[in-house]
């Protein structure tokens, strides 16, 4: 795990895959006129599901557009396997599901996916077979004859996923693929992505909803202000928390006695007492948790509850963002 500064190389790969199955960014910077979209990013994305996290404007879309060859980097290189992402050769290995909701509205879902298969150069017969297969994969077989203009948002998301999969690429770039999908559908899509990851595909999923990524991705790339601020497994990112201030809620009796004892602890930044509830800010959570047990036992305090108030991924993300200049 690493906090990825502009000169570091972030790695969102779980193991050492062949370089031909890597999406790699090397010192990639993208300017939009005077505005910087992504700033000196270096990272590799390997087989498995990698979540791309960040608030709106963090640079996720720019990164995805660079990876899908819609944009060319102002500096650095983006490669899909051995090919520059901008090149035609790279497109053979790429499946892309955009976050926009635009289609050839006059077509049925089936026609759309079939057309995309044909645009990949497959014969009519093979395109039909692939279309049938991929529609089944995304759970749209029975609804694929509906015109896209009349499809729900969730159905359109599945069709977008189907067109990205129809040529069986090893790299999938999915921009907010779960937005607008109901919980049942979300589970089905997640299962599909797990299956694809199990087949060795490299899947980069962008989202600003951390819960989605927590459920789905084994690795994450966190972006803020055009930079990757952290990468690795979610557990690794969580480990960052042990060296950061943390707020802890303690329910104990007598609360005031415990508050007085905690106030003497040099790792405690502040204690707030609300009846039997203490809100404690600590500068070193790991050491604090080790000491508080001893303190409670030694002083005969009835400890009823101890929980952190900001230990979720949202808090990690907030913390990591605040840590940037």
């Amino acid at each position, binding site marked *: 795990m690493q906090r990825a500064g502009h000169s570091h190389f972030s790695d969102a790969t779980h193991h050492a895959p062949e370089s031909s199955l890597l999406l790699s960014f090397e010192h990639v910077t993208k300017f939009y006129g005077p505005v910087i979209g992504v700033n000196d990013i270096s990272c590799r994305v390997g087989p498995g599901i990698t979540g791309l996290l960040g608030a709106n404007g963090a640079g996720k879309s720019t990164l995805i557009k660079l990876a899908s060859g819609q944009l060319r980097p102002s500096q650095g290189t983006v490669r899909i396997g051995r090919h520059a992402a901008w090149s035609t050769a790279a*497109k053979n290995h790429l499946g892309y599901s955009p976050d926009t909701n*635009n289609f050839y509205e006059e077509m049925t879902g089936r026609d759309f996916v079939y057309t995309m298969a044909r*645009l990949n150069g497959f014969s009519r017969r093979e395109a039909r077979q692939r279309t049938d297969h991929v529609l089944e994969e995304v759970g749209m077989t029975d609804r694929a004859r509906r015109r896209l203009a009349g499809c729900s948002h969730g159905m359109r998301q599945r069709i977008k996923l189907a067109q990205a999969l129809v040529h069986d690429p090893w790299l999938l770039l999915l921009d907010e693929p779960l937005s607008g999908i109901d919980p049942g559908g979300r589970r089905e899509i997640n299962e599909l992505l797990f299956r694809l990851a199990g087949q060795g595909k490299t899947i980069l999923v962008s989202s600003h909803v951390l819960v989605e990524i927590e459920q789905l991705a084994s690795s994450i790339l966190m972006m803020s202000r055009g930079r990757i601020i952290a990468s690795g497994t979610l557990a690794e990112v969580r480990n960052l928390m042990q060296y950061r201030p943390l707020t802890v809620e303690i329910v104990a009796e007598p609360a005031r006695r415990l508050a007085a004892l905690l106030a003497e602890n040099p790792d405690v930044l502040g204690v707030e007492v609300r009846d039997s509830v203490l809100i404690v800010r600590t500068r070193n959570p790991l050491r604090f948790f080790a000491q508080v047990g001893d303190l409670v036992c030694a002083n005969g305090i009835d400890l009823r509850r101890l929980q952190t108030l900001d230990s979720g991924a949202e808090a990690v993300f907030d913390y990591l963002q605040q840590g940037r200049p």
Partner: protein
Amino acid sequence: MKLFRAWLTLASLTFRRLLWSANTLMVLLPLAACLLYVVRRHFNAEGFSTDEFRQFSEFMILVFASFVVPICSLAFGTASIGGDREDRTLVFVLVRPIPRALVLVAKFTATLPLVLGLVVGSFWIYCRLAGEVGQAAFPLYLPAIIYMTLAYVCLFHLFAVAFRHSTIIALVYALFMELLLGNLPGIIKRVAVNYYGRSILYAAGAERGLPPPDPQWFEPLSVRAASWALAGIAVGGLLLAIVIFSRREYRDLT
């Protein structure tokens, strides 16, 4: 083979989408208006009259070739790429393994027969309805009509790849440059494609007694020079469009 199949699919998809678009209805209006004029004018079905030939020719040159042909070319020429850009479906094509240059050529290949079909088909109908003068005019004017269509379609493809709201810009171009500047006296009309087309059309019509235009208002180029100019606009426009499209980032697609 895979690339050819993909290219053919794209050309066929573009053709179908253009044909069944609102643009087809839009261009049918001016074409129908021209048809109405020819029908209402009651050209003599039997026998050739120089006066009728002059009237028919002037209508074809000043209205059909100078206004309707650019409008038809504009409607489909900008829509083939520009339409996909505006409705943001171009991204589905750009992430497929088809070189961008071939994407543009496929779009152009789909658009040209459609526009030529509409323009030449309607011109043929007008000529049939106009009787003897029409039958005389058709072979004389057909090459220039085809050259102009080709030049306009190429030019409007260039607009489509270069500008985000290409239809509006092309419309402004057609009305301002083609209609206004193209009809001003002096050298300024050379910025308009229709100047070169009209030069060829007047020269062709002269064979059957069409009087030359007033040199104070319109001094035509030679047929050879005008043909080269139209060819240059067509080839140059298309090549430039290919180069721009191959290199350009379309940031507004997603």
